[in-house]
């Protein structure tokens, strides 16, 4: 393998599963050259031949080290091609990169996992970890908001998790027709209704930036400490090594210091327009 971490390794697509209208989950070979097993919340750079490369978080069970699972929404030139890849086709893989969710640090605490839209994908790897190590964590609440009932990602799994006595799932949608029996409204508005213990809760949040901003406000209002709130940030990335400069958010290189960042590190910046 090249010592140049900019050079990808070819890996095969093992399976492809449609999740939503424009969202697919790919299972890839883990690759030989990858820099060790993925941790929940980390990401890989995935390259489609002749098209380009994008950062995608791991969405699978990271204990399954022989495969990599990524959930991709087809929104841009690269992600559209990625999402359309068929089994046995090849992608370029670099990674894993970045700092993931504070799984070890939050042992012994209650967890409030808050996802918006596709933000559930990077958090699913954290949920897998928690379920494998259920005894190490206190109460677990998953709060998930998405646009409409048709946009609920991993719907069967959410139901399965909700069946467990030791796992709470709350789902809310922005809008729905009369068939929808569940909640309607935005995620931050639900935070005060959950009745969790703010002093013993670690919050892990991933979703659109505006959703994270309001969720953080709601969490702080509920009494969660800034140091106990973790966000997975998204920025443009070209290298994932802290060299290309694109992902900077204040003093943070989202690629190597994040993507998961404790809120106290970005306090004051999250609410700034165009920062």
């Amino acid at each position: 393998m090249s010592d140049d971490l900019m050079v990808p390794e070819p890996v095969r697509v093992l399976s492809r599963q449609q999740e939503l209208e424009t969202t697919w989950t790919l299972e890839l070979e883990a690759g030989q050259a990858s820099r060790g097993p993925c941790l929940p919340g980390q990401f890989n750079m995935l390259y489609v031949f002749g098209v380009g490369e994008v950062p995608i978080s791991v969405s699978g069970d990271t204990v399954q080290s022989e495969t990599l699972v990524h959930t991709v929404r087809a929104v841009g030139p690269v992600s559209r091609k990625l999402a359309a890849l068929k089994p046995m086709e090849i992608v370029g893989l670099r990674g894993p990169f970045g700092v993931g969710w504070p799984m070890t640090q939050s042992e012994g605490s209650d967890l409030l996992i808050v996802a918006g839209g596709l933000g559930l994908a990077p958090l699913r790897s954290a949920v897998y970890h928690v379920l494998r190590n259920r005894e190490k964590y206190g109460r677990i609440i998953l709060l998930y908001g998405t646009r409409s009932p048709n946009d609920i990602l991993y719907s069967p799994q959410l139901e399965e998790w909700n069946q467990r006595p030791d796992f709470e799932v709350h789902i809310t949608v922005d809008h729905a027709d009369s068939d929808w029996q569940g909640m309607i409204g935005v995620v931050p508005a639900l935070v005060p209704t959950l009745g969790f213990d703010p002093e013993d809760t670690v919050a892990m949040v991933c979703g659109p930036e505006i959703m994270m901003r309001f969720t953080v406000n709601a969490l702080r209002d509920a009494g969660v400490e800034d140091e106990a709130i973790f966000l997975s940030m998204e920025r443009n990335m070209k290298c994932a090594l802290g060299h290309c400069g694109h992902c900077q958010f204040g003093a943070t290189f989202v690629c190597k210091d994040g993507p998961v960042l404790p809120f106290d590190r970005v306090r004051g910046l999250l609410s700034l327009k165009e920062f």
Partner: protein
Amino acid sequence: MDNVDDASVITREGLQCLLDALSGRGYMVVGPTVRDHTIVYEQLTRTDELPTGWTDEQDGGHYRLKRRPDDALFGYAVGPHSWKRFLHPPRVSLWQATRDGDELRFVPARDDPPRYAFFGVRACELAAIGIQDRVLMGDDYIDPHYRSRREQAFLVALNCSVAGGTCFCDSMGTGPDVKHGYDLVLTELLDDNSHLFLIRSGSAEGAEILAELPRTPATATHQAAATAIVEKTRSQMGRSMPQTAIPALLMDNLEHPRWADVADRCLSCANCTMVCPTCFCSTVEDTSDLEGHTAERSRRWDSCFTSDFSYIHGGSVRNSTQSRYRQWMTHKLATWVDQFGTSGCVGCGRCITWCPVGIDITEEVRAIHDDVSSGAKE
């Protein structure tokens, strides 16, 4: 090597011997020369390729070469080029991918850079190289392209004998005197009767090469003359950075009205980032053949002033010029310190000179500083 004082004096012929000695050791010597009415860095083999008898007049958005009344070889400040273009080149090929049936192979690009000898590296530029060392090889992730160039490079530094109209290294603590990080350091000693160069080594290889040159030991008079030259340069700085805690000043004033004011003038053209010797941002570009068999990825300089720079699905994070200028300046002067333990600015003045509308980073800091401190007094 710090305490071996081999301070010597060489003539202009001796300087040619130095160029020859470096070439003889396999270095590609790069130094200042005049091209297109500017002083740029190109390959040199002879001292008469240096900008002999030229100086430069620099101000915000202004650069003109002028004749000097003498034959000084180094009687000017820095031009639009910096050594960044050799150590962190504007374009580097990264790899080639070949698709054959359902196989895909990645082959790293061959990268055999020359061994560079940089001739006439100013104190501010040594500081800039030190900063890029931290950015590109100071962490777990090391840029192999930078490292292969940097580790082989031989640095002939130069104490500045003139300060340009946009220079402010003194107020950034980076110059005008060269302190460390060089193989050899020169000071040009020019008067009506003689044209000499005080030379001193800063590394084993530098000492070895110096020993090969025709030279005489430097006298106390030579040393005093060199010190006087640097002190005179220090007194001639065309600009100065306000002496205040700049990171806190900027980060506490991220919504100061001055950002809108500078955005009205800024063209978001990226010139400042291209000429800056520490700006390191890059992007990648893919090309592929028409048949779809091979694709190639290269890396090229990029700038936080472009709209693509911060693009994520749905649009750019920083659409306005105001947000881009704020990003550039707060990174350069504030968050850079958090990231790398040093300011990203060395006071070379290039961003002021080469800004088409003459935006002055020292003036922008001063405006916020003065406004905040006058507000505090009220």
